[in-house]
Each structure stands twice: as C-alpha cells, then as structure tokens.
C-alpha cells in the first residue's frame, strides 16, 4: 500500500521508477475515501489539484530531475496559507477565504517537489488540545474513534497515523504538534523558535508559534525539517543560522550522550502505563549507551499558568485582525464598532472567545503588571531552568502527555482540565527550545499509543533527532498501525 510508505521508502521507489507519483497520490486519496468518514482528519481536499501536481511530478521524475520530496503527497493543517486554496483555521469567521499567496514553508515544500494537498482539521485558531473546538466537526483518533486525536493539530496527526498522506505539517504553540503525535502514534517535531519561518502561518501567539512536521518515522522528520528550515526575510523572527544536514545526524550512535530526566515530570497525574513506558524507554537509552542524569526544572509547576497568560494576551492582539473589514464573513452594524463586535461574536467559537477575553483582561489597564508582566518574568525563570539543565545534559527526556488519548467530550466542559493536559509540552515553547514526540509503547486495554518527548537545546535538533532515531530503531512501536 503506497499510502503507508515513509518519505524515504516512497522517494526510493519513485527514483527507481517502480511507482509513479500519481499512483502514490491516488493511494492517499483512496485511503481518504475509505477511512476519512470515520476519522474526519480533513476539512476538505482538492483531489483534482493533487493529481495534477502528481502528474507534473511524474514528468519531472521521467526527466531525471532530483528534488528531496519529488512526488511525495504532504497534507497541510488549515492554518497555513496555500495559494488559491481555502484557509479557515477551522473557524466560521473566515467564510469563503482563499489564500492569495503561499506560506514560506509551502513555497519550500513545492520547491522540493512535494504534492501539497488537503486542509487538515484542527482546533479553531489552534486553540485546544483535542480538535473538538473545530467549527467543521471533531477529528477522531484512528486507534479508537471514540477518542480524540489530541490537538490542536489533531487532523495532521490522525491523517499521518491513518496513512491518508505520507507526512503532514502542523503548528505548535504549547504542544499542538507533539501532543497529537503522541496520542496518534506518529512522530511530531516542534523546531526551535526561529528555525522555521512563520510567514503565511495564521498567528496565534507569535512568540510561541512554530511550524513543524508530522511523519511516520524519525528519518522523515529529519528530512522534512531540513526542507522547512531557514532564514526568511519575510519573518524577522526567523534566525539567520545555517541549516544542517539533519538526516546525516542519524548515525545510531548515542554513546556518551547525556540525557536529563527531570524529576518534576514523573509525578502527580501521570498515568501508570505512561510512566511504565517512559521508564522502559529511559532504560533502553541506558542500554544504548546514553548516560541518564536526574535533573531539576524547578519552575515546571508554573508553566501552564504562565502560558495561559502569555498565549492569550498575544492571541487577543493577533485576532484583532478578524474584524470583517478586509476579510471574514461580515455581519453588518450601524457603525464600524458594532460591525466588528457582531462579526466577531457570530464568527468565533467558544474557546476562541474565552481566550480573547482572558487575553484582553490580562493586558487591560490595572492588570497588566499583575498578570502579563509577571508571566513574562516567570517565563525567564522557566527558560533559565532549561538553559541551566543544558549546561550538563545534551537533551531531556519526558513523557509527552500525562495520559493516553481521552474520550471525546471528557474534558470539553472544563477548560482548565483541558489546559492541564498540555503540562509536559508547554515549557518547551516558553523556553523557545526544540522538542519532539516519538512512539514509546501502548496502553493495554484499549490499545492506545504513548509518546516519549525529547527536548533539545536551542538549535539542537541534530542531537535530538539522533537520540530519537536510535531509540526508534531499537524498538518496534513505530511499525504498528491502527486497524481501520
């Protein structure tokens, strides 16, 4: 089944002329037709456009053109601009919006020969941890369709896990790549802040957002990261730093690397099966020659509170642009203020409204110092925890999530409980470091994936990928598929 292949396996077959890009793309489209009624990973997809791109790729392949992703179907979260395709951020408010330009990462994918297709479901404006906050319906976990796939990039994780595409892009503001990757059993990577251009990514919290890959193995994550990374004049927060050959870092040799185990992550609320899987992974790392070092990240307990001030404050400012003037499904009013209010009141869903109100409140006169400024200071303490730890260790290992996938509806009535499900992934964004999730086992009954999180130094993606790859190659987890 071509749709089950990794990027490396598919590109090898394409290069040898064993299969065509059209066949690979058709296999993904067939899988979508077969399973997406149950999974609902895609809000929409343009099959004719995907096949036209595939035929163009086949012509290039026949002409001997070499590009790293030539003929590889890659699907995209509905938060990234793809020229002439719809862009809704899984919200009603954008109406019939179509993108007038390509995001930088989309330009890079296209230049690398990828077939860029589909609009993957997500929590509205990337706000959520379950993909239940979509205005286009809930995505289901391929391992158990009564359960959520995680979020906010739930569609991306589910589509990769269900083999509806070869790989996918998502975005991660507080765990929105790593958490769904863990819950769906695929690899998800959040790059260091500034590694990947955010141009063409609809902003949620600008100081935390990064775009990253969802893949079926670590090698594919390395390949895709190499394509996505690099400085961009159109994003002043992208960092002018050379892009290493990430796949070359996957040597399998991790002897002598120091892996930190933060004591604050292995306590309260951690599910017993998740803990056992992570303990076993740490043991595997020791067998593979890594040195395990207990470390402390003392401000861990403050990360969720800090995040929900900073992220909502930035969101309340970023989402001001959805006012019904230049785009959006406008609701008329007697004057512009009434037009803005009515448009936004009708267009935004409950979680987005909640965060806009919270963000506006923490920035408002009289509360700014007590909430926003204080949170920015605590952010410094959290960041310093990591920088101090990285003086002695090469990377940090933790569970990605406290539990496996929860049931749809289980937490949707209690926003605070939903926020606390991101407890292990949030600090990484506040500190601006890189992180990934790699499959590390399953719960027994029901069988649900468990994710292992690796956190790397700023621009330490090579070491992080090397560690993830060595573990993955010595365990069977990434080869398991959900029965669909």
């Amino acid at each position: 089944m071509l749709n089950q292949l990794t990027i490396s396996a598919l590109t090898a077959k394409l290069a040898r002329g064993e299969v065509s890009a059209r066949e690979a793309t058709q296999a993904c489209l067939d899988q979508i037709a077969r399973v997406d009624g149950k999974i609902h990973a895609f809000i929409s997809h343009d099959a004719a456009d995907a096949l036209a791109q595939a035929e163009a790729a086949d012509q290039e392949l026949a002409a001997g053109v070499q590009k790293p992703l030539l003929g590889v179907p890659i699907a995209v979260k509905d938060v990234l601009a793809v020229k002439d395709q719809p862009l809704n951020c899984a919200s009603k408010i954008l109406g019939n919006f179509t993108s007038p330009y390509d995001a930088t990462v989309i330009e890079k994918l296209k230049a690398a020969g990828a077939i860029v297709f589909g609009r993957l479901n997500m929590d509205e404006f990337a706000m959520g941890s379950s993909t239940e906050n979509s205005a286009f319906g809930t995505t289901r976990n391929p391992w158990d369709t009564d359960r959520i796939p995680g979020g906010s990039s739930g569609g991306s994780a589910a589509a990769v896990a269900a083999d509806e595409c070869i790989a996918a892009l998502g975005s991660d503001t507080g765990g929105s790549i790593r958490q769904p990757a863990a819950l769906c059993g695929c690899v998800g990577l959040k790059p260091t802040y500034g590694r990947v251009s955010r141009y063409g990514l609809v902003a949620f919290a600008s100081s935390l957002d990064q775009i990253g890959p969802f893949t079926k193995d670590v090698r594919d994550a390395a390949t895709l990261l190499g394509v996505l990374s690099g400085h961009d004049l159109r994003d002043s927060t992208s960092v002018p730093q050379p892009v290493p050959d990430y796949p070359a870092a996957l040597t399998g040799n991790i002897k002598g690397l120091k892996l930190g185990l933060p004591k604050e992550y292995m306590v309260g609320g951690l599910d017993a099966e998740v803990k056992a899987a992570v303990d076993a992974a740490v043991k595997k790392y020791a067998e593979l020659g890594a040195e395990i070092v207990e470390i402390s990240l003392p401000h861990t307990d403050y990360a969720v509170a800090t995040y929900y001030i900073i992220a909502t404050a930035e969101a309340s400012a970023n989402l001001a642009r959805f006012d019904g003037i230049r785009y959006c499904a406008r609701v008329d009013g007697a004057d512009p203020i009434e037009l803005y209010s009515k448009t936004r009141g009708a267009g935004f869903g409950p979680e987005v409204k909640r965060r806009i109100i919270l963000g506006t409140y923490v920035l408002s006169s009289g509360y700014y110092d007590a909430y926003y400024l204080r949170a920015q200071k605590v952010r410094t303490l959290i960041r310093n925890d990591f920088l101090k730890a990285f003086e002695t260790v090469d990377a940090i290992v933790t569970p990605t999530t406290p539990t496996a996938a929860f049931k749809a509806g289980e937490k949707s009535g209690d926003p605070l409980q939903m926020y606390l499900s991101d407890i292990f992934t949030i600090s990484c964004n506040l500190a601006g470091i890189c992180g990934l999730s790699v499959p590390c086992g399953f719960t027994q009954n029901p069988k649900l994936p468990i994710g292992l999180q690796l956190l790397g130094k700023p621009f330490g993606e090579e070491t992080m990928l090397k560690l993830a790859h060595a573990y993955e190659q010595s365990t069977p987890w990434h080869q398991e598929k959900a029965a669909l």
Partner: protein
Amino acid sequence: MASVEIDVKYVAHLARLALTPDEEKQLGAQLGNILGYIEKLRELDVTNVEPTAHAVPLVNVLRADEVHPSLPHEDALRNAPQKGGGLFVVPKIVE
C-alpha cells in the same frame, strides 16, 4: 483555589466581541476559575527578574532597502466582504 471576579461585559467591549447574556455568564464563571489557578504565579519572587518577550534574542533586525514584488492589488482585495473602486467598503465613520 480562589475564584476571581471579572467584568466580562467591559472586557468584551474592549475586545470588540459581542456576547450573548448566556455567554457572559458562562465565561465569567470559567474565567474566574482559570484566573484563580493563575494566581499561583504570585507565590514566586520575581524581583530583579527581567521579563522575556521573545525566547530568541534578536534585536534591530534589518534588511537591505531593495524593491521586492508585493501582493497585487486585486489579490489583496479578493477576500473583501464588500469592495468597490479598488477599495474596501466600510460603514460610514465620519458624519
């Protein structure tokens, strides 16, 4: 966990966000809970700690002053709810 009172109606006005009375009530309760949780940041001593606005310290990012292609006019207007004469059309602002 202490709950915090928040004037949702006033904040919604600042945010230009029309809420129904039911939404106001529900948001007030939920945000009170969340702010109660956030109160834990007061436990920390942050005297002499510099705030972090951005994790990667880049300052004064400059680029060469060169002309590059930008979004064509018609593309900038393509998603406008209402347009005319090459412009966005909005309700009357000045009497």
